[in-house]
């Protein structure tokens, strides 16, 4: 029996073979099995896209039409009012155009044992979040006579992320050039200007500056949100920095992802981008309740990653690489393409569809694709 299956490997996809195997009756003769597989292959071959089929056009229509029905709004992240997520048409355009800067970069940070069971989840989340000095300040007072600033620290907040006052002072002193930093109590810091002329003015200026000093966390992550997904806990973030987050000990490096395609490309490579683009598109469509055949999305993702780096479906992306001048001109900014082509004397071999449509010739699609070859009698 297995030898018969072997014969069909490569002719029928493995998934179909497995399905046949599963659904076979317990006893079956080789002849009958052969007949079944033959029929399966026939059906499969009939379902395969014919060569010359204009899949791109069908794909564009199939994504374009449901796209008109999508909402233009962003909606709020489940339960949390502050987290805005780009969805719907704007997000779809973002993905397909392969925008360099996306409106709401996000990460899904999965955690290793034991953190994924919710242990210290808040602590880990706070560790990921980019924290400025502002958040550790309880109170700031300025002594006008002495020209000193006294900062009372928020110890609750410090305990949450396990940061000690010495560590804070170390980080602060790096960015406090021209000031003297002194610890005057358990949670009190005193800052004095070294400047001779206008120490008070300096101190006032510092009061604003000191709030924005980066202390700890992953740069770029502005919000964190522990979420329970199924059995385990993970952390959704607003702001993305895969490189930094993957270096953390608590983070599961096999599942953590970002929705920024360029970041995924840099860290995981082009194949990961293809997969992530598909997932992101599906996510958008699912949220809108739109169903598009997955094959169209696969085709788009393949086209976007064909060149080895991410390319959007735009005149700077995949259209730029089209060999035909007329094809490029037909997409966007036609005059520029035609001028440039004229300047360098480009040739157009008219191999593709759109240029032949322009020139009113049969297009190389479907039955227009094959040419005739005659055997000359000798």
């Amino acid at each position, binding site marked *: 029996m297995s030898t018969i299956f072997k014969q069909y490997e490569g002719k029928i*996809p*493995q*998934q*179909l073979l*497995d399905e046949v195997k599963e659904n076979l009756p317990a006893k079956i003769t080789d002849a009958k099995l052969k007949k079944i597989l033959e029929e399966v292959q026939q059906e499969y071959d009939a379902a395969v896209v014919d060569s010359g089929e204009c899949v791109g056009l069908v794909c564009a229509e199939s994504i374009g039409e449901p796209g008109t029905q999508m909402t233009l709004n962003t909606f709020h992240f489940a339960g949390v009012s502050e987290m805005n997520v780009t969805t719907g048409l704007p997000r779809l355009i973002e993905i397909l155009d392969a925008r*360099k800067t996306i409106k709401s*970069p996000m990460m899904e940070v999965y955690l290793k044992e034991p953190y994924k069971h919710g242990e210290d989840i808040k602590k880990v989340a706070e560790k990921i979040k980019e924290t400025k000095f502002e958040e550790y300040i309880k109170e700031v007072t300025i002594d006008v006579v002495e020209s000193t600033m006294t900062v009372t620290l928020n110890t609750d907040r410090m305990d949450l992320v396990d940061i000690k006052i010495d560590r804070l002072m170390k980080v602060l002193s790096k960015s406090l050039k021209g000031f003297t930093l002194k610890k005057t109590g358990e949670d009190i810091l005193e800052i004095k200007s070294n400047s001779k002329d206008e120490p008070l003015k300096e101190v006032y200026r510092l009061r604003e500056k000191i709030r924005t000093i980066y202390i700890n966390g992953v*740069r*770029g992550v502005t919000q964190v949100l522990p979420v329970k997904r199924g059995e385990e806990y993970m952390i959704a973030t607003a*702001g*993305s*920095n895969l*490189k930094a987050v*993957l*270096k953390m000990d608590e983070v599961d*490096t*096999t*599942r953590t*992802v970002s929705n920024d395609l*360029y*970041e*995924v490309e*840099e*860290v*995981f*490579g*082009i*194949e*990961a981008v293809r*997969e*992530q683009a*598909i997932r992101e598109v599906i996510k958008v469509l699912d949220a809108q309740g739109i169903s598009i055949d*997955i*094959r169209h999305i*696969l085709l788009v993702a*393949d086209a976007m*990653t*064909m*060149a*080895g*780096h991410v390319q959007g479906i735009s005149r700077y992306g995949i259209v730029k690489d089209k060999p035909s001048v007329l094809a490029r001109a037909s997409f966007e900014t036609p005059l520029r393409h035609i001028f440039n082509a004229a300047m360098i004397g480009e040739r157009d071999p008219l191999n593709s569809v759109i240029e032949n449509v322009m020139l009113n010739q049969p297009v190389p699609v479907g039955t227009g694709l094959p040419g005739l070859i005659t055997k000359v009698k000798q």
Partner: protein
Amino acid sequence: MAKSRSRKKEDELSVFDPSAHELVPKHEKLSDKEAKAFLEKYHATMKELPKIYINEPALRPLSVKAGDIIRITRKSRTAGETVFYRGVVDE
């Protein structure tokens, strides 16, 4: 977000092996013999293949040079598993 997107820039993360990540499918290098047979089977030339850059994160565990062919075994949503090929290029 100050991050460099330069493909060439090396940093500490270049030691990170992404092949364990769920987004990354299996990458294998074809031997010279396999590569020749592959090109013959599909009547293709290296130039016509989809490309993959030589300094790709996913290629770090393999030792490849420009002109190699990479076989990528993807999990497919429609066929269970599919095989895809990319030709290695240097920029």
